[in-house]
């Protein structure tokens, strides 16, 4: 009962703030609403028995990535963009219409495909006994060791790319 109520509240907050992200004219307000969306998604992850994912959602997404976004918004002078009012009314109406069609299509996929597969080897009791973070860490350093190392190379390339792009002359 409590779980359903929590899920309903979190889902409503997530959807409303996500819509506010894309309708706000001011990018700073969009970023703030996106942070609220990410926080409530972290709550949904807690409901799904994934505390580790919930914590890195807050640390990495709501913390690091959104601070980067806010930094860039502050560095750019966006006053001119805010005053710029473009009228694309037909495009907006058509876009919302096509968006609803996309939503219906995704829903039809969920309906037509059987959403049950063979059960994996980590039932909730076992994960609770071992600890969620321990299970994730063990899998990360055994079965998924190569993708993990490739991820570190990806991050290194991203750092180098960002530094090169941030230089005065390209």
């Amino acid at each position: 009962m409590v779980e359903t109520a929590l899920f309903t509240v979190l889902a409503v907050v997530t959807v409303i703030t996500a819509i506010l992200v894309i309708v706000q004219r001011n990018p700073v307000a969009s970023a703030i609403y996106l942070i609220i969306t990410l926080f409530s998604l972290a709550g949904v992850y807690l409901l799904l028995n994934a505390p580790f994912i919930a914590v890195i959602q807050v640390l990495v997404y709501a913390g690091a990535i959104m601070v980067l976004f806010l930094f860039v918004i502050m560095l750019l002078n966006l006053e001119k963009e805010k005053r710029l009012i473009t009228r694309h009314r037909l495009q907006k109406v058509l876009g919302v219409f096509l968006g609803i069609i996309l939503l219906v299509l995704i829903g039809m996929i969920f309906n037509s495909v059987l959403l049950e597969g063979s059960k994996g080897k980590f039932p909730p009791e076992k994960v609770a006994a071992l600890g969620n973070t321990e299970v994730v860490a063990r899998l990360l350093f055994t079965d998924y060791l190569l993708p993990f190392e490739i991820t570190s190379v990806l991050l290194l390339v991203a750092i180098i790319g960002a530094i090169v792009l941030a230089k005065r002359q390209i």
Partner: protein
Amino acid sequence: MISLSSYLILSAILFTVGVLGFMLRRNIIVIFMSIELMLNAANLAFVAFSRYLNSMDGQIFVFFVMSVAAAEAAVGLAIIMAIYRTKETVNADELNLMKW
């Protein structure tokens, strides 16, 4: 217990909102935030399936998606800064250098 489909419906709605933001907005930074919304929708589907299929692989994938999103945000925002320095705008309509 909440059913798997309610999580998937939430994920589908988030993804659709992200797609709409990507298609309809003109500000590159908001377009970027829409991409983050879509990635989060995918993450939610991953975690929901991981919970209901008793498998941890979905959570590992979310970990990788988050690191890719972090790399993408760093490089993408650096590109936005470089574009702003040369063109003095972040309006996607005015950035037509690569158009034929």
